[in-house]
């Protein structure tokens, strides 16, 4: 593989792969929104102090964490239609990845809520701040700072795990590169490009998380 040959191939394959990049980004962002929303719900239920809510959610989270993402994707894409629920590959990918990652996000948020120093809440109470002010000015800012770095790490994992949606034919980077490779037999060139594209997406996120860790670890 010469450099000029590689560049020529890259120019030929990149337009097709770029479509895959778009799908990867869209899939990751949609799954992130779903995982975050569900994760907040799990975390609030698990810290509610009501054991009739806490126990079922703990089990649900364990079940989700205990099944490989690929099996969850198969289930949603191939089994749900038998039950009358038809989903596009992209929709199934968003739901599968979103539900799977909601378990990890929920644990991150729960840890963040529990990690807020109760003494600071008492100090705010003793100063006569209202409940709403205590939540918005004392609890949430601290919880967000605690949660951002692990949240970012989950996002990086989710970006890479979005490639698993290729098993249910979502046309993201991995699917597109496999298609090109099988028709051109240029495995080395195509998969090198795919790896570079993932790195272009993930390295900025990795640097951002490192910065967040440094910034918020200090306070």
């Amino acid at each position, binding site marked *: 593989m010469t450099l000029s040959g590689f560049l020529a191939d890259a120019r030929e394959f990149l337009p097709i792969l770029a479509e895959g990049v778009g799908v990867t980004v869209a899939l990751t962002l949609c799954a992130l929104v779903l995982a975050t929303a569900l994760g907040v719900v799990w975390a609030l239920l698990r810290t509610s102090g009501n054991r009739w809510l806490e126990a079922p959610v703990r089990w649900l989270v364990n079940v989700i964490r205990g099944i490989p993402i690929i099996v969850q994707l198969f289930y949603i894409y191939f089994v749900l239609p038998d039950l009358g629920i038809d989903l596009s590959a992209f929709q199934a990918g968003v739901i599968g990845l979103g539900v799977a990652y909601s378990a990890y996000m929920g644990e991150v948020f729960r840890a963040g809520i529990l990690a807020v120093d109760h003494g600071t809440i008492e*100090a705010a109470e003793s100063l006569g701040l*209202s409940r709403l002010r205590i939540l918005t000015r004392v609890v949430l800012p601290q919880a967000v700072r605690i949660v951002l770095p692990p949240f970012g790490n989950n996002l990086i994992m989710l970006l890479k795990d979005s490639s698993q949606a290729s098993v249910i034919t979502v046309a993201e980077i991995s699917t597109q590169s496999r298609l090109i490779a099988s028709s051109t037999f240029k495995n080395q060139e195509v998969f090198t490009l795919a790896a570079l594209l993932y790195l272009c997406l993930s390295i900025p996120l990795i640097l951002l998380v490192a910065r967040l860790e440094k910034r918020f670890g*200090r306070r």
Partner: protein
Amino acid sequence: MIEIDNLQKSFGANQVLNGITMRVDEGEVVCVIGPSGSGKSTLLRCVNGLEGYQGGTVRVAGQQVDRTRPEIRAVRRQVSMVFQRFNLFPHRTALGNIIEAPIFALGEARASAEAHGRALLARVGLAGREGAWPSELSGGQQQRVAIARALAMRPRAVLFDEPTSALDPELVGEVLAVMRDLARDGMTMMVVTHEMSFAREVADRVVFMDAGRVVEAGAAAAVLGAPREPRTQDFLRRVLQPLG
């Protein structure tokens, strides 16, 4: 200023305060001493409404302290609290900690809250440290910021719960100096402490508690210098000669 009458408080079956009656008058410094677990922190927390209670009354500036009623916030603005572990807001600077409640509980304008906050920081010996984060400050400095934060509400009384117990020995002096200064200015103070020399020097009165009761109360010189109750004598002997 603070009137506590026959206060009863229990956690489940554990009766922690068993009919406490005491008062702190305007401009007075009252130190509360007693062995660990005697209920000193719980007593302070009842005065500020951080804990509810089952019987008796607590009044601050004539208002009943009842944490279940919305007026509790008005009561809390009259009495500020300084905690053993400072409890500063870690996500706000020294000045940010101080102006938080004046702005968001009293509705004071930011500019005037900041001017007052700067003056308070100077008063506790931290002029120029407005922008410091709590994690950049020593324990003694953090506790002085916490005192300034308590004063920012222009309270009529300040409660201190072992304000120097979490500090390295060499940092205790700077915090006690600020408290001494406050007392000299006529601030009403209720101080739970193990610093007997501070109590002897600054307190108008000393209250000795054991097992949820007031065992002995009176002028500082009398309670600390010539205690009448055997339990007070025993306690003072142990704190004053910890190795003996």
